């Protein structure tokens, strides 16, 4: 989607955004992109969607004073904005007036400067001192005379029992730290801390050529490596006006679905493991192996696939690919029944999942929890249906939705989606058309000036890529919409008043992957 921004002034930004939300029903904030516009100043691009008509729009707002850049917050309109604004603050130093939590999100609290500003010098940033984490947050407001006023909010009271779940913890699936205030076994509040595996992927992209940036996508959410790269390839191809052959589209669709199968099988396994059912865990891993074998023959990779490139695919499919995928489909269908027998039907599992960790549809939209999490709450957010790309418009499959929004619904969505993935693959695998697997591109790819946003349905939500090109051989600004960040920001809301053990079930069913959150 080529972006035609609505441009708002900082002064009437708040009221205009409120109007967009209430009058035009742009109730889903897809993402906030911070950007250094150079001479113009620092600013943000808000991408919004109307969840009824799936119409999308983008809003641009620029704060001209680089040293004292501020923009009013929209966190009262979209709950998910709070953490997205923290990210922008962390990278660009734009202060969001009225956001109650203006701490850094990814970088250490003693980091100096704002790394995504174009005038940032790397040697200034780091310090070798011990990082004393602040136990308060800042809220900024504008005084009458136009100066900023800071107010401190304490994070904890003196007799809170605070327990760190993570960054090294078996159930966080990576280095996520959830600072949890407990009352006995009951959770009172969760502060998520991200950034333990932050690599500055977006910043690195600004110095790489377009083909080089591709290598980084597989390292975001490694369980939707194909979709991540699909989104990045699509945005560049769209910007350059590359027309793909049907063969490429077929193969990409099949590969995406294989990847989804792989991810959901791992989800099933980890879910079982987190609840202590290790046999089900091994069953999931056993069948995931079969999926990986199928992909490996063509791509050569099992985790890091490196398969798509701008203009097509790295190489044609393996000669045995079609045969093996068909065999896989036949093999895996009876296994779904086995999963239900050994795990889904278990009474303990049902007690642990049903009615636990409920995320309502309104909150799912407000936080921007896309993917299975949103669909479990009844939000029709499947990018494959709403904004069809490649072959998804031509195949038959159901968008799985539930209405409960609890852990069990989230779990069932994934299990049912695996069946749909197999259904999609079966429709496509027999009639992959002949044609080129790669449309030849110039050795040095230059994207024309402009801004684009394209998204794909990743394994656990919408993976979007925002590209701002100034006509160079590397992007001026590249931003990935993480699938997991909204999920983590919603955890506090979901879990308040539940038990510690529910944190594990909720974490397992939200199915976040940390490198995707941290980038």
């Amino acid at each position, binding site marked *: 989607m080529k972006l035609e921004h609505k441009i708002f002034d900082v002064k009437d930004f708040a009221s205009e955004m409120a109007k967009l939300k209430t009058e035009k029903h742009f109730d889903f904030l897809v993402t906030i992109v911070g950007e250094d516009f150079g001479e113009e100043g620092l600013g943000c691009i808000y991408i919004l969607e109307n969840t009824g008509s799936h119409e999308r729009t983008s809003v641009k707002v620029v704060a001209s004073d680089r040293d004292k850049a501020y923009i009013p917050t929209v966190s009262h309109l979209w709950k998910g904005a709070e953490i997205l604004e923290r990210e922008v603050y962390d990278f660009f130093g734009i202060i969001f007036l009225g956001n109650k939590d203006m701490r850094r999100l990814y970088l250490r609290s003693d980091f100096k400067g704002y790394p995504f500003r174009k005038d940032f010098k790397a040697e200034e940033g780091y310090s070798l001192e011990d990082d004393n984490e602040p136990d308060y947050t800042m809220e900024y407001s504008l005084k009458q005379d136009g100066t900023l006023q800071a107010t401190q909010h304490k994070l904890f009271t003196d007799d809170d*029992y605070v*327990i760190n779940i993570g960054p090294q*913890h*078996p*159930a966080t699936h990576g280095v996520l730290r959830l600072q949890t205030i*407990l009352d*006995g*076994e009951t959770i009172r509040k969760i502060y998520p801390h991200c950034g333990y595996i932050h690599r500055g992927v977006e910043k690195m992209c600004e110095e790489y050529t377009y083909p080089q940036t591709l290598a980084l996508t597989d390292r975001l959410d490694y369980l939707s490596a194909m979709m991540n790269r699909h989104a990045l390839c699509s945005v560049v191809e769209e910007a350059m006006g590359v027309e793909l052959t049907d063969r490429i589209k077929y193969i990409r669709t099949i590969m995406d679905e294989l990847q989804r199968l792989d991810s959901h099988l791992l989800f099933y396994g980890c879910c*079982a*493991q*987190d*609840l*202590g*059912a*290790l*046999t*089900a865990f*091994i*069953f999931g891993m*056993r069948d995931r192996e079969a999926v990986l074998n199928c992909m490996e023959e063509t791509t050569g990779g099992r985790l890091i696939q490196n398969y798509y490139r701008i203009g097509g695919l790295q190489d044609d499919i393996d000669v045995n690919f079609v045969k093996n995928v068909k065999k896989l489909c036949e093999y895996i269908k009876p296994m779904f029944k086995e999963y239900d027998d*050994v*795990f889904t039907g*278990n009474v*303990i*599992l049902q*007690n*642990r999942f049903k009615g636990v960790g409920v995320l309502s549809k309104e909150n799912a939209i407000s936080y921007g929890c896309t993917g299975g999490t949103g669909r479990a709450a009844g939000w029709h957010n499947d990018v494959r249906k709403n904004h069809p790309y490649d072959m998804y418009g031509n195949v038959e499959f159901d968008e799985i939705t539930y209405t409960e929004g609890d852990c069990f619904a989230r779990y069932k969505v994934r299990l049912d989606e695996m069946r749909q993935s197999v259904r999609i693959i079966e429709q496509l695998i027999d009639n992959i058309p002949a044609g080129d697997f790669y449309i030849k591109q110039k050795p040095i790819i230059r994207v024309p000036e402009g801004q684009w946003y394209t998204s794909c349905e990743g394994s656990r939500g919408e993976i979007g890529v925002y590209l701002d090109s100034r006509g160079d051989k590397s992007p001026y600004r590249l931003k990935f919409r993480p699938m997991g960040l909204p999920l983590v920001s919603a955890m506090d809301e979901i879990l308040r008043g539940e*038990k*510690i*053990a*529910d*944190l*594990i079930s909720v974490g397992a069913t939200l199915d976040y992957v940390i490198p995707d959150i941290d980038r």
Partner: protein
Amino acid sequence: MFDFSLITTWFDSLLRDTLGLGDFLSILIECVLVGVIILAAYAIIAIVLIFMERKVCAYFQCRLGPMRVGFWGLLQVPADVLKMLIKEIFFVDKADKLLYMIAPFLVLIGSVGAFAFLPWNKGAAVLDFNVGIFLLTAISSIGVVGVFLAGWSSNNKYSLVSAMRGAVQMISYEMSLCLCLISAVVLTGTMQLSGIVEAQGDAFGWLIFKGHIPAIIALVVFLIAGNAEANRGPFDLPEAESELTAGYHTEYSGMGFGYFYLAEYLNLFIIAGVAATVFLGGWMPLHIGVAQVDTVLDYIPGFFWFCGKTFLLVWILLWIKWTYPRLRIDQILKLEWKYLMPLALLNLVLMTVVAALGLHF
């Protein structure tokens, strides 16, 4: 039937008559010898159980389990034990040193104490009192204190949560555990373990046959409660790996951890052993009332009967552990206080009626 008291009386007379030792010395030697044998059996059974668990769960999960160390992986567990023995034992800063040291021993005392009650064969019960059942439940509950102290003294928040869980869970489940044992006592009319076994010697005399419905209910409740008492899945909340890392023994290393590990497996064995003794006739062979068959069955030593029954129950408990996901703390307590305990109480009444009116076989 092979009577183990032949050996014990022979050894006693060897010391007293042949060697001419006095009362004090011969009892001292016998006690030390029995103690050593118990501890050795304790360690060996732990090794067997650990190996069994690893192999059984591997086959449940379409894996092979340990295969590399020794033939069929037989030396894997001894190697692990060796590793654990030579590991450094460290102390946690600001931990309560005394309690931290004592806790593993308390857990071990409870479990070894209960272990000594198991009647292995006719005449081979180490501790055999007229209030055996009573003492058995009393000694085995010392373990709770160990778990609680370990969690409390570790100066670790995860351990503390786990200690609270452990204490709550173990104390709760002891209730139905004892109620089930009492219903067996009602039927057999004795609290002495050897007496209970002797009472099951008739044709189809095992309590689950003899006491039919109430006895079967009691056995099932006993196994569920016993599983919870031994902190085994699906009731392994105190150590809930994915929630509390390793719970109360997070901060232990080397043999400190080893003791908890040992005790966990032995508790499993003890639960199965007590259930086998009380409900499945212990070392008593299955008599079916046909004299020839009974004689043949009697030729199989009681030791094998006991171990066979116990390992069968252990296997069932492993099966449950490796299939079921973990419960949540409130669900665990609800299960006990709302379902198991009332059920066990009603069952006790039922059993009393059955015993009083002579409705059993």
